């Protein structure tokens, strides 16, 4: 926390000197769970506070410096009390090329329910199970945009491990993922470098990208300790194992009239097996419904992969449906209701997320996740009693 105070003082100092601009948010969050905790050690509910200030400075020549630290203090889970440098980078631009050096954040993808091809940044899973929170990734990014598209090359010199809830936290597996004991296929462990190349372009009303990734997989395989050491019979832990992979991924977004078509897919060559994964779907929007000014969108996506252990992987054969409501009011109100159905395990889940602004600086987010049906053999089984509602009030400055 001392580091935070120093950073905060430094940032305010810089801003006061007129060297750049400060923005960001502070928030309070409460999560209430519908059922009693299933596992020993878990607290029932939790409250937390978080801050994500952002310092940005741009020079006359268009190059810039960005610094975005993030911190959360959680009442229940010591793993969720964490600090991260989301971004700390220098960007230099000159004509058609640019490079970025430092901790950065890059998103690739088209679909809404699953982010399959997004690979540069590790998921900050302890933040939220939706997988949209990401850890800062150290990178050297080089990009060039000739007339025939955009080419980017990334060298990622250091690997970030996925975060997981600790023993006290909800939304975890029955065995706690022991993030202090991760093992790697590469003997260089976290220092193994990743290399990524991507080509993207827009042709007509379609945006697409294709990439090749070679390096450490962002998704750990979670192993019981006895698989690694037969003498280790500890039944309270899971050990994350990070394999080396080669992956070719692609994403497409296409717009026509009221339709948006989205597709993502990848082929992965890894330690255990090679497999193909894909997700695709559409979003159809009824604009200005009956002259009300409200927009209503209907979304549907289907995800599939051909992993041998498919039954135990999430999104192996899943259908998603959603409804988005945007009244286009001055409070920027948004509502998204989503439903997922596993076509093999008969598991399903319902999510509701709504938010609106109050005044010029506040935003309230209300969210609920219900694991409606979880089969003993399915992936949601361990979360079956973790239905929760989340309330977040954020102050943006």
């Amino acid at each position, binding site marked *: 926390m001392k580091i935070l105070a120093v950073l905060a003082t430094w940032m305010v100092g810089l801003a006061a000197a007129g060297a750049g601009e400060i923005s960001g948010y502070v928030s309070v969050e409460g999560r209430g769970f519908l059922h009693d905790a299933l596992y020993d050690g878990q607290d029932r509910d939790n409250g937390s506070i978080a801050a994500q200030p952002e310092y940005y400075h741009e020079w006359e020549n268009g190059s810039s410096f960005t610094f975005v630290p993030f911190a959360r203090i959680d009442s229940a889970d010591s793993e969720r009390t964490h600090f991260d440098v989301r971004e700390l980078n220098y960007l230099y631009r000159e004509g058609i090329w*640019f490079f970025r050096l430092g901790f950065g954040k890059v998103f690739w*993808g088209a679909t809404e329910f699953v982010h399959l091809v997004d690979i540069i940044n590790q998921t900050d899973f302890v933040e939220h199970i939706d997988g949209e929170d990401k850890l800062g990734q150290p990178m050297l990014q080089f990009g060039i945009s000739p007339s025939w598209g955009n080419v980017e090359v990334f060298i990622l010199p250091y690997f970030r491990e996925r975060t997981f809830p600790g023993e006290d936290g909800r939304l975890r597996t029955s065995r706690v993922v022991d993030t202090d004991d991760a093992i790697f296929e590469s003997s260089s462990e976290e220092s193994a470098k990743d290399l990524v190349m991507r080509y993207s372009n827009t042709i007509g009303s379609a945006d697409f990208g294709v990439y090749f990734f070679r390096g450490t997989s962002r998704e750990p395989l979670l192993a019981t300790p006895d698989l690694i050491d037969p003498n280790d019979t500890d039944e309270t832990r899971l050990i994350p194992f990070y394999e080396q992979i080669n992956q070719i991924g692609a994403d497409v977004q296409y717009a026509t009239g*009221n339709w948006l078509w989205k597709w993502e897919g990848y082929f992965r060559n890894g330690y255990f097996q090679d497999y193909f994964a894909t997700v695709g779907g559409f979003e159809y929007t009824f604009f200005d419904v009956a002259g009300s*000014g409200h*927009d209503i969108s209907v979304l549907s996506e289907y995800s599939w992969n051909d992993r041998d252990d498919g039954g135990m992987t999430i999104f192996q054969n899943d259908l998603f449906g959603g409804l988005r409501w945007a009244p286009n009011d001055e409070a920027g109100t948004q509502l998204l209701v989503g439903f997922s159905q596993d076509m093999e395990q008969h598991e399903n889940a319902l999510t509701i997320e709504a938010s609106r602004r109050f005044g010029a600086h506040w935003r309230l987010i209300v969210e609920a996740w219900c694991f409606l049906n979880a089969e003993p053999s399915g992936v949601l089984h361990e979360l079956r009693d973790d239905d929760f509602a989340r309330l977040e009030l954020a102050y*943006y400055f």
Partner: protein
Amino acid sequence: MQSMTKIPVMAVVLLWTAVAWSAPATPDERGWEIAREADRRSSGYGDSTAHLRMILRNRQGQESERAMRIRSLEIEGDGTKSLCIFDTPRDVKGTILLTHTHKTEDDDQWLYLPALRRVRRIAAQNKSGSFMGSEYSYEDIATQELEKYTYTWLRDETYDGNDCFVVERRPVDQAHSGYSRQVAWLDKSAYRTWKVDYYDRKDDLLKTLTCKGFRIYQDRFWRAGEMNMVNHQTGKSTRLLWSDHTFGTGQNELDFERSRLTLIR
């Protein structure tokens, strides 16, 4: 050689005087001529940047404000490329709306969401929806491409001390526009738009836009400093306050590409 070139020049001069002096035969032709002249006078700026404050006022008189920066680039033979970068409200700070308008085809539009560092394409057909909860719809704020309407000259009239043409324009894409028609007042001296009445699909008066505080830039381009859109059916209104107009800033097409949205702020 001299005598040969003289003939076409004479023909052009004669043709020009014929167009200038004979009133177009029908109100539709006249409406088109006026719209085309207004379009001609407002185009050719190349590229520009401006600051925009948007003040939303509800029926009870409560106000809320948005601030944004607008950058635009004319594309010869096609439409306009524009960036709208939000500064306030703070929860949407850094959000960027990128629009490529086209003369006849559907426009292309993307939204950059800074929290996720994600660029989302948005459906091209969104025209009548409100822009940021204001009384302006997406079609109101988009660059008005000449080809997207048909025109009729209605009458000449004095508005606010200016001798004006009153021209009606009807959207070509009637299925997606929020309007059946618009009636615009343009002054005869500089073809500036002073007032527009918007009629909804049932042909009832929906909104009125009034413009004032015109300033000339580069000795050629008139820009309104203040625009006020009043919704007669809801009692709400939105004022746009423009400032810091600059032209010829050296922006190029690459600055308006989807792939570059993650590099700007």
